[in-house]
């Protein structure tokens, strides 16, 4: 690790001026959702931190998370960060394949034992090891082997973080999340389907900048991005307060940009930063496009009832069961009245 250059050195080598460095630090603070007053601290940290080794493992996944990350083409700020880390293994992105690739992974693990980061996308099948293998190694095995010497694990995307779609009912492969398997290392969950690229880079930046993992919520998600709900930061929130709701996707309310709660928006129960970081280089996010939030960054989002069912909807069970309850009520009432009359008869000796 000693031979790796610091981020400051890398930037200098690229001929980036001090002004450029300040700009880089300002955008980093912005990514980390830190107040601008933190910029000097970030600058100091970045100048002195050495770039860590990163091993990226992909299991039962759709590559959407990798797509999300790499869509932001280099040399963006995210790209710069990837310059600042050493991505030593990523079987989708790396040129090497087969034994060569596995050798690179082992080399990185040995060289950086105890200091490297493991990034995982995709869930891990426990049903049958043959459901998903890489180079003949089952996902569980590869995960355990790779994590053994890691500093921390980052679960990228809802599949790695919570089991995601492979883990959805009826979960044919017995898919589980990273934190279901990794108990002795810090696991940072960056859920989302896919996760916001900036959030992924922010987690790495945090590790890079401060050498620590960020504050996490009860689901292991960084508080800076998953601390408030979509609803909290939604620009349509005032309409919610006024009770103005779009009822269909093409009514006047929808055209006027009213709240999508009635169309099943999961914003109030979904913790993510979409409403402020937005997507597609800050263009917009689903609600701005007129579609309710699906809650993709929440555990088991796939199995939480209909996407278009309002959050306030209760499940009363079937009308038959309610009718059954009514019939039971009648029966109990008749029985109670009969018992009452019987007691009256018992007391009074009359029929």
């Amino acid at each position, binding site marked *: 690790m000693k031979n790796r250059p610091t981020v400051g050195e890398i930037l200098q080598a690229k001929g980036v001026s*001090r*002004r450029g460095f300040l700009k880089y630090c300002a955008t980093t603070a912005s990514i980390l959702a830190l107040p601008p007053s933190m910029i000097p601290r970030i600058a100091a940290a970045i100048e002195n931190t050495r770039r860590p080794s990163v091993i990226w493992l992909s299991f039962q996944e759709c590559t959407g998370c990798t797509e999300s990350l790499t869509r932001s083409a280099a040399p963006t700020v995210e790209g710069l960060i990837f310059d600042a880390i050493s991505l030593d293994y990523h079987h989708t992105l790396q040129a090497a394949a087969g034994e060569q690739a596995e050798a690179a992974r082992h080399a990185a693990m040995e060289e950086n034992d105890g200091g490297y980061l493991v990034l995982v996308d995709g869930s891990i099948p426990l049903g049958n090891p043959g459901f998903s293998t890489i180079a003949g190694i089952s996902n569980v095995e590869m995960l355990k082997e790779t994590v053994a010497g890691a500093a921390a694990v980052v679960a990228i995307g809802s599949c790695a973080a919570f089991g995601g779609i492979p883990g959805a009912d009826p979960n044919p492969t017995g898919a589980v999340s990273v934190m279901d398997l990794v108990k002795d290392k810090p696991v940072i969950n960056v859920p989302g389907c896919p996760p916001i690229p900036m959030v992924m880079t922010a987690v790495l930046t945090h590790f890079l900048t401060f050498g620590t993992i960020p504050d996490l919520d009860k689901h292991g998600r960084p508080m800076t991005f998953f601390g408030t709900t979509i609803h909290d930061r939604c620009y349509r*929130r005032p309409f919610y307060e006024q009770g103005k709701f779009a009822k269909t996707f093409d009514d006047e309310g929808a055209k006027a940009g009213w709240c999508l709660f009635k169309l099943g928006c999961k914003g109030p129960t979904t913790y993510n930063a979409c409403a402020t970081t937005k997507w597609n280089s*800050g263009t917009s996010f689903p609600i*701005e496009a007129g579609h309710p939030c699906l809650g993709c960054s929440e555990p088991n989002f796939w199995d939480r009832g209909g996407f278009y069912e309002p959050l306030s909807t209760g499940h009363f069970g079937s009308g038959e069961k309610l009718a059954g309850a009514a019939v039971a009520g009648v029966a109990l009432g008749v029985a109670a009245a009969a018992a009452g009359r019987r007691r009256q008869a018992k007391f009074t000796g009359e029929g």
Partner: protein
Amino acid sequence: MTTQQEVQAPASPFHGNVRPILNEVKHALDKLLETDIPTTIDLASLPFGPGELEYLEATLGTGELSARLDALGSSRIRETIYPGVWWVEHRNAFDEIVGRYIEITRSPEILSSQDADIAAGRARLENQFE
């Protein structure tokens, strides 16, 4: 200098997120005048509806001074029609905006020449004499 004309609200839905920011700017100006402490507002963490950011930018307008910085992509720094209030936009090499700030200060720090760059420049200058 831009005339201080009344800025019209855009026709698109107006969600009321702009007023609080303008209010914060006002308080930051008070702070600057009284204590000389500058303030930076990071617009990335604030919610905006369609058209609102444009409305905010239009409201602040373009003042006397504009600057362009070329380092890791371009950056545009300009004073608004309210002296002491600066609109700062950082872009990457693909001209995508990566950071947007309102700085309430006498002069944004990034406009000043930095010691490290001065030293490096001085070294380059010295090379001219060799």
